[in-house]
């Protein structure tokens, strides 16, 4: 037992005092650190602690509805579920989770690869973001997912997401447009635009859907609505805690506001009738209210089901659509050029009358061909029409008559009147992507073609061939101008309403120009258009309607240069066949409706376009009568009369009243009755 010598104690005490000093300093360091964290930077850390546990969930706004003029719902949203995967939460087990999901939801190879690709490439924060594995699963699939929740781990979630429902599939789908999920780069771009524009527009978030085409795109801002917010307390694993009052009551929920509704000028009863009546594979049927310029029906084929385009489409299907020679994504009514063919002859006629090239009552002899400078242009009737005046020339569609006018008048004069009637520039329909068409004058040819303008070109232009190109919508506006003397801006949205039905914005009819023609000119042209339908020699004599006088013009637009032999449509390959046109309005004395039908690659206008137009006119007049009768019967205004006071319907004939309702080709009584 060695006892401590007292000398060492002194040494030891010194060292112990040193140690005490060291400990004192160490504790002071800790204390000052705590002071720094808790007192000096306490506020900042308090905020960060709150950010930690307050999770803001979005309460998606209901997107506005799209309604027809009678308030029939065309597009709405329905509840549905998306399956998402948060890669971070499954980590190394993700592969297995994906395999499991693939089995449960019967993924295609493509779909599974897409998810695996994302798992491989997602880095950093992306691993924390929910990745949409499958959109809009069925009720059965939802049950399957719920039943297998545990095996799928916390990484798989099913999110309720309202999906757009296009109730009538492909019908009018080019006009209505579609939506799909916003891409990562696009998201930044969209939000940068929103920020630049200022105001209190909500920025987009990942997984948002945005309008892509048509009205969905054009009225994205109005339809979108304002998302609400739900604030929940989450733990470190992101699980929501139910019984927690860490967030004050009044801050837990901010409701969402639905978007505004669009009320269209379409009458879905007419649209439905047109869709069912129009026999074409590809083409357009357009109907416009002659008194307002509002579109009543718009058939455009082929088209892709917008319900599919909203994320449900597979890569293979998309590739198939893209490869389809008929180009189903093309909005033909405003995005495709066509030769107007004989329907253009009204322009030539007006030009000739106004420019003095054609005297009223002037005639031309048609031997079946027209010769100019050693070249010969052939008439559609090989044997010739003999002596024809304007009425006969328009009615029977004699080419030689118009070759002669073109020959005498020249290209520029025709082009001038074509422009006045709205050709060569967009009609002003408020939708993206409208093309201007071509109304060539001499300068146009000089600038674009080797050798410049040749006089012979005016002959082709005079009958709507050559380089004249129009869209079906331009044809509609043109015939509307002939019918009423007004060049309308075609419109399709009557008004925008807020969710309670209050009108936010009402669209008034808009006249872009008035036709500066003498009454005699209009009368003369009208006579020709009446003859087309109402005279036995007229090209559309076969489709005349009882009781209503319709005026119109057939057209057959040549797609390829005529061969030596005349062939029947069935003998020519599809893409070389002519396009059939028919443009008409009725009643002729006080036009209410303008109709244009384009049946692509079907041959002659008289047989393949005119019947649809005539049926449509008839249907429209019947519907008008039906509405008027109901209004009288109910003794109060119907749900939604067209904005412009409708002209009194044509005097109803006794006995006709019962019939029309059933006359609609066996269709159910149109549309939904207004409230």
């Amino acid at each position, binding site marked *: 037992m060695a006892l*401590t010598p007292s000398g060492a104690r002194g040494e030891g005490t010194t060292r*112990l005092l040193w140690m005490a000093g060291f*400990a004192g300093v*160490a504790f002071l360091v*800790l204390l000052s650190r*705590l002071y720094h964290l808790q007192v000096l930077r306490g506020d900042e850390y308090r905020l960060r*602690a709150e950010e930690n546990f307050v999770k803001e969930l979005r309460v998606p706004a209901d997107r506005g509805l799209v309604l027809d003029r009678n308030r029939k719902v065309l597009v709405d949203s329905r509840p549905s579920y998306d399956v998402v995967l948060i890669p971070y939460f499954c980590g190394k087990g993700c592969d297995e989770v994906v395999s499991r999901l693939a089995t449960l939801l019967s993924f295609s190879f493509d779909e599974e690869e897409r998810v695996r690709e994302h798992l491989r490439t997602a880095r950093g924060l992306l691993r924390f973001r929910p990745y949409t594995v499958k959109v809009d699963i069925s009720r059965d699939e939802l049950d399957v997912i719920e039943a297998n929740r545990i095996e799928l781990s916390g990484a798989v979630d099913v999110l309720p997401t309202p999906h757009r429902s296009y109730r009538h599939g492909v019908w009018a789908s080019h006009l209505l447009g579609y939506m799909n999920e916003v891409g990562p780069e696009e998201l930044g771009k969209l939000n940068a635009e929103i920020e630049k524009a200022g105001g209190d527009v909500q920025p987009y978030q990942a997984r948002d859907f945005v309008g892509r085409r048509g009205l969905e795109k054009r009225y994205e801002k109005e339809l979108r609505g304002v998302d609400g917010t739900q604030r929940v307390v989450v733990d470190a694993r992101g699980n929501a805690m139910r019984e927690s009052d860490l967030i004050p009551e009044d801050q837990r929920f901010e409701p969402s506001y639905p978007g505004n509704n669009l009320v269209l000028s379409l009458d879905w009863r007419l649209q439905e009738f047109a869709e069912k009546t129009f026999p074409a594979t590809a083409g357009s049927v357009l109907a416009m209210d002659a008194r307002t310029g509002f579109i009543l029906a718009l058939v455009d084929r082929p088209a892709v089901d917008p319900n599919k385009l909203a994320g449900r489409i597979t890569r293979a299907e998309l590739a198939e659509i893209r490869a389809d020679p008929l180009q189903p994504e093309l909005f033909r009514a405003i995005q495709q050029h066509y030769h107007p063919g004989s329907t253009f002859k009204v322009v030539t006629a007006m030009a000739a009358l106004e420019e003095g090239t054609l005297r009223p009552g002037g005639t031309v002899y048609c031997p079946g061909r027209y010769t100019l400078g050693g070249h010969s242009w052939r008439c559609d009737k090989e044997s010739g029409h003999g002596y024809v005046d304007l009425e006969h020339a328009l009615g029977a569609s004699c080419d030689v008559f118009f070759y002669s006018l073109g020959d005498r008048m020249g290209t520029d004069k025709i082009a001038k009147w074509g422009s006045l009637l709205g050709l060569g520039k967009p009609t002003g329909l408020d939708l993206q992507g409208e093309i201007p068409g071509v109304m060539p004058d001499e300068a146009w040819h000089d600038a674009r073609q080797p050798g410049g303008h040749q006089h012979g070109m005016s002959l082709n232009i005079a009958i709507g061939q050559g380089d004249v190109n129009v869209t079906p919508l331009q044809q509609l506006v043109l015939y509307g101008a002939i019918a009423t003397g007004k060049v309308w801006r075609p419109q399709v949205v009557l008004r925008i309403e807020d969710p309670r039905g209050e009108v936010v914005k009402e669209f008034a009819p808009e006249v872009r120009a008035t036709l500066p023609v003498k009454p005699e000119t209009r009368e003369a042209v009208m006579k020709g258009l009446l003859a087309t339908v109402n005279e036995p020699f007229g090209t559309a004599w076969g489709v005349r309607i009882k009781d209503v006088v319709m005026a119109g013009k057939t057209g057959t637009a040549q797609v390829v240069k005529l061969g030596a032999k005349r062939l029947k449509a069935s003998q020519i390959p599809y893409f070389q066949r002519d396009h059939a046109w028919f443009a008409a309005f009725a009643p002729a004395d006080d036009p209410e409706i303008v109709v244009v039908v384009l049946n692509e690659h079907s041959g002659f206008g008289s047989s393949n376009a005119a019947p649809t137009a005539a049926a449509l006119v008839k249907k429209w007049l019947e519907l008008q009568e039906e509405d008027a009768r109901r209004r009288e019967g109910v003794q109060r205004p119907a749900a939604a009369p067209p904005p412009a006071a409708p002209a009194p319907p044509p005097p109803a004939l006794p006995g006709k009243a019962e019939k029309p309702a059933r006359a609609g080709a066996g269709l159910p009584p149109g549309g939904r009755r207004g409230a």
Partner: protein
Amino acid sequence: MPARASRPGGVVALDLSGLATLGAPRQRSIARFPWHVALLALSISGLGVWNLASASRSSHVEVWAAQATWMAVGLGLALAVVLVDYRLFRRGAWILYGGVVVLLLLVLWKGRMVMGARRWLTFGPVNFQPSELAKIAVILALARWFSTDRESDPRRGPRGLAGIAIPGALVLLPALLVQRQPDLGTALITVAVGATMILFAGVRWKTLAVLGTVVVLAGAAAWPHLKPYQRKRVETFLDPEGDVLGAGYHATQSMIAVGSGQGLGKGWGQGTQTLLSFLPEQHTDFIFSVWAEEHGFAGTLLLLTLYFGLVGSGITIAMNARDRFGQFVAVGCTALLFWHVFVNMGMVTGILPVVGVTLPLMSYGGTSVLVVFTALAMLASVGTRRFVN
């Protein structure tokens, strides 16, 4: 030094200790029992159990009850240790040391694997960590060594390299075995405690300088041999916000918890970081952040004061120790307490890297509680037998 003020007779008593004889009368011993140490330790234990009750709300496990039970067991053990004259431990020091080394080898060979480390030995229903016991064994072995070796003669002056080679080896052998498990935290504490005791024994400045250089070089050489997670922790310590979701998560969340406590804290059971499990290891190594979050700067100041009181008392006891062995035991036990507190709080507040070191009497864990109570009891034992007439 607060502990000193309460015992004005301390210095006088020290002077008389040279006349010490064995076997103090029992009633005098009780009178000399350092009650303040017991009071401080029990206060911290009480706060610890109360704090655990809050920390375990989210997991719905009654951790605090288990901890209280361990404390009761620890208290019994401490009582036994205090009643035994500490000089008995002197005899057992080598046996304990030898036994611990065997157990440490056994752990490496047959230990239970938990989260990538072999730290536990299982005897029937009991799991325990020999590494915790190693700390006590090293304290006793070093105390024993320094109380008898030739170099202890003060006339020889501070020690050179030769004088600290054997005690150094005594520390490093178990420390390296612990590090093999791997358990960097316990190994570091063992080394820190051993180093403190060696320094207390006296080392030449020149030797210290040489050793310091060697340690720095060895550290640089050892860097590639550290486990990736250990390296990551050091890197994270240097830049905790660099990887908030990865390795920096512990440090960042802990600092958020501590800082968000502000001046007065969020109140018992109101800590959001705690309740919502943002704090990792909130029952054990990060228990201090729970306390700091819920009781604020006021609470941390209180706890710091209590610990400082304990460390100060330990140093005073060492000053007044009757013999060299007792003095070294007191220094060792105090160093153990101090390093645990300092490293743990430094880690929680982000001024030291994250290593697995518990906060004595606050962290949950049976072995830890028993070891700390044993160390405190040995301290009290030395304090009780500080002088004999």
